[in-house]
């Protein structure tokens, strides 16, 4: 079962990195907004699964935080798009993220107890590390609209805190 947990974590990073090879930097602002919205929603889905399957109070705290924070970011994104009179545009990277998430959720749903907790925490760490790196170094430098860029920066500040929180959670579960 440990192999499955490791495989899920590797898969999480792999789905993102494979897609990033296709030049995410060339996405326009509205496509990048779609990517961010999709990534937020995926993490919210993982969190709901964690609330349903885990009995660990620390996992519940983290999952509830993921739901409230990513919901806040998505609401801000929708508000900004509305203000700009624009809509987010679906793209290959959003699709790759969703494809990866479906498989990870399918694998998660086979786990229970401590095995689920470790898999969830490990995946959250890998997911945030990979997405944060992409947002900071590939997406933000290539966003044209200042307001969209500012929102991405605000989101990145939040997601870096999540990464640190996930790291502590993984360490605690592996003790």
């Amino acid at each position: 079962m440990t192999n499955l947990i490791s495989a899920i974590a590797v898969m999480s990073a792999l789905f993102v990195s494979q897609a990033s090879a296709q030049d995410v930097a060339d996405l326009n602002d509205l496509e990048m907004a779609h990517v961010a919205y999709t990534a937020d929603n995926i993490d919210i889905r993982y969190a709901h699964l964690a609330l349903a399957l885990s009995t660990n109070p620390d996992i519940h705290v983290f999952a509830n935080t993921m739901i409230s924070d990513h919901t806040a970011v998505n609401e801000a994104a929708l508000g900004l798009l509305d203000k700009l009179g624009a809509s987010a545009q679906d793209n290959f990277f959003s699709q790759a993220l969703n494809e990866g998430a479906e498989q990870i959720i399918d694998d998660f749903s086979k786990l229970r107890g401590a095995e689920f907790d470790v898999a969830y925490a490990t995946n959250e760490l890998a997911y945030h590390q990979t997405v944060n790196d992409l947002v900071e170094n590939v997406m933000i430098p290539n966003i044209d609209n200042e307001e969209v860029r500012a929102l991405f920066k605000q989101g990145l500040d939040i997601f870096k805190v999540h990464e640190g929180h996930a790291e502590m959670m993984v360490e605690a579960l592996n003790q």
Partner: protein
Amino acid sequence: MNTPITRRGVLIGAVASATVAATNGTRVFAGEPTIHEVQIKKFKFKPKHITVKVGDVIRWTNTDLAPHTATAKEFGWDTEEIAKGESKDVLVSATMETQYFCAFHPQMKGVIEIE
């Protein structure tokens, strides 16, 4: 040397006694509680440490996009969720817990010192 008491001096004194500026907080009128402002910014309580008196009010204002809380370490008091741009107040009592954190982001911590 004694300063002569003038009509103007008395008026200034009256206003000063009604408008008290405490070291770590503000009070608009005498008899109203002193309010201590704590900003929540970039996942930190600022200031992290505040000194208050019983009867004062602590006001947390969230400037982050992410929602936060100010929650006593042993859950004796709680602002509940503070969304972006919102403020929540807590009245200082003699027995309140003095260490607190954000229930959503447990690494965020603050300390209240009651004089």
